[in-house]
């Protein structure tokens, strides 16, 4: 009877996860959705605690207190600009938990009778350990790369890296088979976890910069799949359902990110962006054609602008310029009656939706945040487009040069706006490493400088004028 109650409660919790995720389909219902999910989790935890196999609570409570404190401090203290690092780290903890739970379940299966099928438990344990360990170590590397501490943020690679990865993959498969043949040898499991961990590190370390959104989304998916695999280990449906929801979510985001760069997942993970042979050099593209403008000159431009579009990129996050952008936008709407929108490329920033969160933090209403596909057809009616710390996502070469590394990547067509203002420190290339002809276009003005400082000067100039 108790078993039935527990399983019904798990069913209810699973339903609450689905309803919770459904809530995320609109900003208005999203808060409630998240709370529904949290409540579902609480329900699942509470009914698990009444399980008769539990003989003492002190270890559980100790773990929950430690984990709860760490989690809460992170959640309260983390800056919105550092959100990619935190999500990466949390993905890792999810994978790590799966590795530990599956390992413990494997050991327990040698001591007490298992509730489900032993074969299913052992095979699922192999998957859980493999995916979980790749997720844990891969996420730690991703976190350090995003943080740009310990591990450099850019591409780190060495010759023979893929050979090493292939050998590691073979070792993992061999160990997996050996575990299935002899589940009592726990050392094999830890060997698998170690090999998968090294593979997780080596798969993540060569990927850098603007490819990070794909990596985080993929690791997010893995953390879900690891949880689902653990569900097979324990023959527990709520783990399987919750895990596969997360796995599906991460896969969708991964595919959206890849499409937004017109690259395959394999190309992001194993490939390398390199400028094509014979492509125009920076000197050829820029020489004598780049027009620099002072904040005062740009202020005059804004004086007559009726429709202004801001295009934020990772540079805005680095410069913490989102609040100044909001001030500028507010001033333009209230003093000039201008219509202001934000055009957001799917891969702008270091994780899916990164720019939206930063702008929401700066109190920008979400209905001003426009998706690329939505705003592109209307850009020819915009008077001023202001690009802040973005580069490759507005590079028209993506449309014109089929040999370029970003060929075919959908971009925000700011070059169609009447005037384009680029706020940027220098003419240095973006992640793709190629020059951007937009910077030398007739209708483009470069406002060089640190994003925040340059915009503060612009706002001051506008208020004076």
């Amino acid at each position: 009877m108790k078993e039935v109650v527990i399983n019904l409660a798990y069913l209810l919790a699973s339903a609450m996860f689905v309803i919770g995720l459904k809530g995320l389909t609109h900003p208005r219902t999203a808060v409630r959705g998240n709370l529904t999910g949290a409540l579902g989790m609480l329900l699942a935890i509470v009914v698990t605690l009444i399980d008769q196999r539990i003989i003492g609570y002190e270890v559980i409570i100790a773990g929950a207190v430690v984990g709860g404190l760490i989690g809460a401090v992170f959640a309260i203290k983390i800056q919105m600009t550092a959100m990619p690092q935190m999500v990466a780290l949390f993905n890792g903890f999810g994978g790590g938990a799966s590795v530990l739970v599956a390992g413990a379940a494997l050991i327990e299966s040698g001591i007490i009778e298992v509730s489900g099928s032993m074969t299913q438990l052992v095979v699922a344990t192999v998957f859980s350990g493999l995916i979980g360990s790749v997720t844990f170590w891969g996420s730690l590397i991703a976190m350090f790369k995003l943080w740009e501490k310990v591990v450099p943020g850019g591409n780190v690679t060495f010759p023979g890296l893929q050979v090493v990865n292939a050998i590691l993959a073979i070792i993992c498969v061999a160990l997996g088979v050996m575990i299935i043949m002899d589940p009592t040898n726990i050392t094999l499991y830890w060997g698998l976890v170690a090999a998968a961990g090294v593979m997780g590190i080596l798969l993540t370390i060569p990927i850098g910069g603007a490819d990070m959104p794909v990596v985080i989304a993929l690791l997010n998916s893995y953390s879900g799949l690891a949880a689902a695999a653990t569900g097979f280990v324990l023959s527990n449906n709520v783990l399987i359902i919750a895990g596969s929801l997360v796995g599906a979510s991460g896969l969708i985001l991964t595919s959206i990110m890849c499409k937004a760069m017109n690259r395959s997942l394999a190309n992001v993970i194993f490939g390398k962006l390199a400028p094509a042979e014979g492509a125009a050099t920076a000197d050829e593209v820029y020489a004598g054609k780049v027009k620099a403008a002072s904040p005062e000159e740009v202020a005059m431009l804004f004086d007559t602008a009726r429709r202004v579009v801001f295009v934020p990129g990772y540079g805005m996050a680095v410069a913490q310029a989102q609040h100044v952008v909001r001030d500028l936008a507010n001033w333009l709407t209230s003093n000039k009656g201008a219509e202001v929108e934000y055009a957001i490329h799917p891969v702008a920033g270091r994780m899916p939706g990164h720019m939206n969160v930063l702008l929401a933090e700066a109190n920008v209403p979400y209905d001003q945040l426009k998706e690329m596909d939505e705003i592109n057809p209307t850009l020819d009616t915009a008077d001023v487009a202001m690009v802040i710390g973005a580069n490759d996502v507005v590079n028209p070469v993506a449309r014109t040069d089929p040999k370029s590394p970003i060929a075919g990547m959908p971009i925000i067509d700011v070059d169609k706006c009447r005037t384009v203002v680029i706020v940027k420190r220098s003419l240095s290339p973006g992640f793709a490493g190629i020059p951007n002809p937009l910077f030398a276009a007739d209708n483009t003005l470069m406002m060089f400088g640190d994003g925040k400082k340059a915009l503060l000067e612009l706002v001051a100039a506008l208020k004076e004028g």
Partner: protein
Amino acid sequence: MESFVFTLTIFVLAVFLGFEVITKVPPTLHTPLMSGSNAISGITIIGAILSAGTKLTILTTTLGFLAVVFATINVVGGFMVTHRMLDMFRRK
């Protein structure tokens, strides 16, 4: 074997359900979606609680304890930070 097919059925259907639901989440909420789904993947806490609570051996209890720590960070941190972000979207 029969129970495995049953479990597999649930897994496959849940993946399809996930695709259906998540496709409708707008790009503006993709970051909260990631942190929120991350919190949900902390569901492994259930397995962690069982290992930490049944105390079969010192090793399984230790593994259970560490797993409870990891999963609780995920659950508590994930739902809280998602709430913090979504609150910013709701403000206006």
